[in-house]
């Protein structure tokens, strides 16, 4: 079936997004594919958005809806921080996201994972799926790619991981989802948030493990054949 490329289809982030707590903070992870219908509009998008210095949000669903919700929440949190005189808590950030999602549930199509660190409760992850429910969880997965990860996390998740174990888990999971979900792809981005601050990481395909039926990438067949390359003058 020949699908016409609909360049006017709404930008949607097929997406795989993940948020995981560990002993000391949280690790957020996401893929980087934004699609309009079957076309990949952006193959290196950043779906992990800053709300405050200590709270970030993973966005999935409609790109426009998730961006506008993030923008409003960033704006409100900025004012809240000024009034409060200290960094906003993760709970407040998550509840602001919930308010917007819930009160505009008829118009929005975005699932969000809010994660961060504050001095009162440490690292926390809150899921805010479609409809505006708010659920605090030790880890959360979302986006179309998450369907392929429920079984993986049921088996691989453990309480009390270290920062390295948590980031490895997130990297592995996003990479597995990308392997099977057409709407997820590109690179794996991670953001680690703890008492010391925020660390952003970037993992292109060659730095990720290969899964079933995936092959080592090469520049050319010629390299594999072992034939000497044609002379370059």
């Amino acid at each position, binding site marked *: 079936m020949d699908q016409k490329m609909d360049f006017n289809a709404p930008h949607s982030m097929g997406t795989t997004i993940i948020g995981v707590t560990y002993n000391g903070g949280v690790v957020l992870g996401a893929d980087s594919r934004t699609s309009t219908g079957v076309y990949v509009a952006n193959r290196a998008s950043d779906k992990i958005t800053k709300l405050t210095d200590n709270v970030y949000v993973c966005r999935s669903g409609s790109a426009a809806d998730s961006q506008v919700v993030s923008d409003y929440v960033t704006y409100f949190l900025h004012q809240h921080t000024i009034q409060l005189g200290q960094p906003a808590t993760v709970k407040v950030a998550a509840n602001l996201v919930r308010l917007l999602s*819930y009160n505009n549930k008829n118009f929005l199509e975005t699932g969000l994972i809010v994660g961060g660190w504050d001095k009162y409760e440490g690292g926390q992850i809150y899921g805010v799926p*479609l409809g505006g*429910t708010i659920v605090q969880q030790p880890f959360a997965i979302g986006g179309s790619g998450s369907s392929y990860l429920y079984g993986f996390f049921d088996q691989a998740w453990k309480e009390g991981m270290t920062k390295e174990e948590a980031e490895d888990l997130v990297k592995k999971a996003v990479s597995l989802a990308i392997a099977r979900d057409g709407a997820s792809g590109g690179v794996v981005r991670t953001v680690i948030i703890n008492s010391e601050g925020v660390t952003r990481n970037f993992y292109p395909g060659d730095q990720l493990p290969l899964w079933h039926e995936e092959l080592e990438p090469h520049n050319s067949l010629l390299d594999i054949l072992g034939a000497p390359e044609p002379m370059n003058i």
Partner: protein
Amino acid sequence: MASNSDLVSDTQRTLYPYVTGTSVVALKYKDGILMAADMGGSYGSTLRYKSIDRLKPIGKHSLLGASGEISDFQEILHYLDELILYDNMWDDGNSLGPKEVHNYLTQVMYNRRNKFNPLWNALVLGGVKNGQKYLGMVNMIGINFEDNHVATGLGNHLTRPILRDEWHENLTFEEGVKLLEKCMRVLLYRDRSAVNKIQISKITEEGATLFPPYSLKTYWEFTAFKNPTVGAEGSW
């Protein structure tokens, strides 16, 4: 998803539920009310969340159990927080009993239904005040009633018949719990959205007690289960 008329009119329309809880079952017993629900939050056919608290104490005298859209349940809890706060602010020694809370919820649910913007829930409200036990139910279209045992969703079809048969006045705590567990086990076998992690709560004159979540054992050792096609090869 939003049609143009949704965006241009100033009224909202009926919604669809996204994250839903399944049945709640409750019964009156000697000392008060016993209520049970599982901790599942389904997202369509996916059993997405398995630690959602669907039973909450309200004020000093009531317990609320909810099925249906979880975000709407969370909103109702906000409304009730305010209601209880205002009640406490009177500081007059009086406090809202279960009958009053049930009435408030009925008003809210029916009014929202009239505006074609329902809270997509079926609620169970139980409690004891001054020795009087109360157990009621209200749903998204405003249907509400009071009875000795109530259930929501599939519970109405699967558990009410059991309760009609086995409930009697002055059940002990142990008998009540066993009866509720029988109901929850049936739901586990026969409700697709059921999750094997249940919570039981009780409310008595002394107050509300939320027991820790636990899982039920299930039985699969019928010979007919082990050899279902014996005597009828090729059948299922």
